């Protein structure tokens, strides 16, 4: 299992457009990917579940990548967060 933590910098939080792109990328991956915020968590392949977490600027989230090409997938997602959020 691979994981990383990230603090959201974008003023709109995890907003729909890039979040949509992220979900799209995640759906192509062979790992189980989970987004955690506080006590709640969501499957990164489900757009509504992600949006339900209501991730805002300043929130810390943790992403875990389980199974499949863990390292490669985790790297990709981390980069995506750094570029978009």
């Amino acid at each position, binding site marked *: 299992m691979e994981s990383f933590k990230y603090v959201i910098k974008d003023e709109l939080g995890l907003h*729909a457009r890039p979040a*949509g792109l992220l979900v*799209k990328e995640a759906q192509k991956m062979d790992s189980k990917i989970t987004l955690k915020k506080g006590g709640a968590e969501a499957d990164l392949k489900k757009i509504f579940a992600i*949006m339900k977490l*209501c991730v805002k600027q300043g929130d810390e989230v943790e992403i875990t990548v389980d199974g499949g090409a863990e390292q490669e997938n985790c790297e990709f997602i981390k980069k995506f967060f750094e570029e978009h959020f």
Partner: protein
Amino acid sequence: MKVLKGKSIFKGIAIGRIAVYKKQDLAVKREHIDDVQAEFARFEEARQKAIDDLQKLIDKASAEVGEAGAAVLEVHQMMLDDEDYIDSVRNIIDSELVNAEYAVATTGDNFSEMFASMDDDYMKARALDVKDISERLIKVLKGYEDNGIAGEDPVIIVADDLGPSETVQLDRDKVLSFVTRHGSSNSHTAILARTMNIPALIEIDYEDSMDGVMGIVDGQSGEFIVEPDEETEAKYRKLLQDEIENREMLKELKDKATVTKSGRKLNLYANIGGIKDLASVLQNDAEGIGLFRSEFLYLADNDYPSEEEQFQAYKTVAQNMAGKKVIIRTMDIGADKQIDYFGLDHEENPALGYRAIRICLDRPEIFKTQLRAIFRAAMYGNIAIMYPMITSLSEIKRIKAIVEEVKQELKDQGVPFREDVEQGIMIETPAAAVISDLLAPEVDFFSIGTNDLTQYTLAIDRQNAKLDEFYDAHHEAVLRLIKLVVDNSHKAGIWTGICGELGADTSLTETFVKMGVDELSVSPSFILPIRKIVRNMD
């Protein structure tokens, strides 16, 4: 043959098939079903069609407004593919034995309720996306087409009335004329007809059964002729031919300067409502754009347009105008232009309410995004900015402070932008006209918005058709205010234009030139007729 009498709001003749625009009824009934599998299949089929329809819209949007405009539609596609959403619909069908429409509507309500209750304005606004996809599914389930116009040939659109969000979806090449039951000569549809240079009638009491039959719109007499006999149709075909020839003649005036015989020059610019109007601006040889209504960017989507989207749109227009002036009016939302995601409170008197620059000064983050996009796009052409609904000097001071902040931020971030963008204000309140001597030294130009100036001066609501008889477009009070503004601007060494409907009133062109008006900005179709008048003046 049947002749219906209405009121003309734009002249011209149109001959073609009638398309009755039906407001789609999305009310859903709960119905008991027995065959769960069949209902699953209906839902699945509708879901696939909705996704395919979105793909077509995405392809169209990417071609017209670029990738950014299509992004929200892609998100909608993904929402339609979301497991939780699909599971919820299937669960409701299965456990309650109800029709797919009902299950979709219930799921849509639950999901949008969830977003609406979130403690975050951005997420709250996402409730609309959920509503949108659920409505899309219900439309497919009910067998509605995407809009009222199917088929390839252009048609006469007949409707109760059309709002901005409905007309923005129309394919303009397929519209010959607008005929509505309601609306006034200043309604949104009327202004659109003028911009598109097509005839339009209001107060026509049509019947739904007229859908698909031949019709003739006579924008001179205000008559709408349904199923014309051969003789009538022939007569109108001849008139239409004459009209086309007349237009050809006017084309001779292209590439000629707009000057009087004694050499007084008038700048003749065009009003546009979006990128799609550029073609007619260039065709009609406008010398610039005097009013670029930026609202279309806000109306076309379910969310605030991003800086990048706006930047691309402004840049496209500036580049196409190749060095000619492009005056962008910052967003004029509110009053008759309402947008759900702005979350504006209901107002008893919206024309006197929270709109235009008032929203911008109250929510500077929206204003700043637009200003950043404009200052950046100004690198690519001759862009100027104009602020609407000004009533006082302090508003101009506040705008200037925000502009300075925006410039400083761009500088700090190393983003290229143009420093010396011309900035003017609209004179559309009697207050601004009366104190125009105080405002003139603070700005680079004035542009008189005669629609609002007239409605505020005469205290007449533009949207109320009953008041049309009291509405004197040539009221002496308005003309005196215009004269006052022009004189005050010249004393301060700046120029004044007119960008309201009155600017296109050819019976006033001479009066305006004599008053010393420096610029007229009109719907593209009026450019050449006005040039003709000016060139014949002494």
